[in-house]
């Protein structure tokens, strides 16, 4: 064996060893098995009572401040929609600035179409619906992430890794509930994470604490004694866009069919 041949062969062997070593890291049968038995003791879920919400928007104000979403940028992690259903069955919807300042007019803000006035006698029903990330059991936003920057934690909350996100925007398009947006400062995907910093130290989310009417609640679905779990198990609750198969974990009391 001459020197050239020796170099060639040893490089080949070293390279050949590296390839399977780093490739093997990709597949781990134990992990695949572990996926099937979920041992986590917490599953954060949310409960919204649409009867109780009066549309004051204090939840939106608190959320933006607590989570450092620029206050005057027209993006928000949670928002409140107003639905006015008229006698002809039409749904009129608005959410000016995500209801950060509540609803300051009886007229509905239709953006470029101007303010829409609806006569009191034409109203069949009217109500407010707070919206936030559904922390889906099958989050489509996580599936589409090409770099592993968004993921589901063991307690069910979907988080975004700001350092790892490349800002491609697939997840923003992939979310059927439109809860994701680009953070105006960090230019990466941003979304509600149930105030992860608060719930992980035993506090409630900022929006739950802000709501004066108890329209918002957070709970642990794995704890049968949790009052939120009891309501979800024993009362008539509904979720948004069930047909998408995302298994959303924000439950609504009194959710009318007009709400999409």
């Amino acid at each position: 064996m001459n020197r050239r041949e020796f170099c060639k062969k040893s490089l080949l062997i070293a390279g050949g060893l590296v390839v399977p070593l780093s490739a093997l890291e990709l597949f781990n049968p134990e992990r695949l098995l572990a996926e099937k038995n979920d041992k986590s003791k917490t599953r954060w879920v949310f409960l919204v009572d649409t009867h109780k919400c009066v549309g004051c928007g204090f939840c939106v104000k608190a959320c933006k401040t607590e989570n450092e979403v620029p206050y005057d940028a027209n993006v928000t992690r949670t928002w409140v929609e107003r639905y006015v259903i008229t006698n002809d069955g039409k749904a009129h919807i608005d959410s000016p600035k995500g209801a950060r300042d509540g609803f300051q007019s009886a007229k509905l803000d239709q953006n470029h179409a101007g303010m829409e006035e609806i006569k009191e006698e034409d109203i069949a029903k009217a109500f407010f619906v707070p919206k936030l990330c559904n922390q889906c059991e099958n989050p489509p936003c996580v599936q589409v992430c090409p770099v592993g920057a968004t993921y589901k934690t063991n307690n069910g909350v979907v988080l975004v890794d700001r350092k790892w996100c490349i800002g491609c925007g697939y997840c923003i398009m992939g979310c059927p509930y439109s809860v994701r947006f680009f953070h105006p400062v960090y230019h990466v995907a941003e979304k509600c994470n149930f105030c992860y910093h608060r719930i992980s130290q035993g506090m409630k989310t900022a929006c739950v604490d802000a709501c004066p009417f108890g329209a918002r609640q957070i709970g642990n679905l794995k704890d049968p004694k949790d009052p939120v779990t009891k309501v979800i198990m024993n009362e008539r609750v509904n979720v948004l866009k069930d047909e998408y198969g995302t298994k959303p974990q924000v439950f609504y009391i009194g959710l009318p069919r007009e709400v999409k």
Partner: protein
Amino acid sequence: MKSHVWRPLYVALGIIALLLVLRVFLVPNDFGVSEQGYMYGWHRTSNEAEWKKVTVKYKGSEACKECHEKNYNDITSSPHADIGCENCHGPLLNHPEDPEKLSIDRNRELCLRCHLKLSYKTSDRGNLKGINPETHNAGSKCVQCHAPHNPGQLGQKQEVKK
């Protein structure tokens, strides 16, 4: 075996090997699959801790009690009992060190969040006492007549002012 046909294969294998080696250096050590599995579990483990480090800003009305006892007692025995102080005054943060004072919002818009009359019978909003801001003392601040911490009685305000 010395056929040019194999060359592209070697090149391809070389590129794959290079990528796998690069991957070892570029991907952080704690990047991997969590218990959530291959579909939803890929992430940098240390990111969870990063999110937990966000500063808590809102600390609840109980935190105001010891220093602003009068305001606290006023409001908790009034129709406004359920409204948290920080909704109207902003987050506590490290007040009174930083900020030294919390803001006071005397705008009509603050009260209209709830008291703008909307006769929505199918929502609790319909049961709230509402006013029409265009006819109800337009131009004057609500707090000139109503005490925000005790809106039950009119005139209570004069006491607060002293």
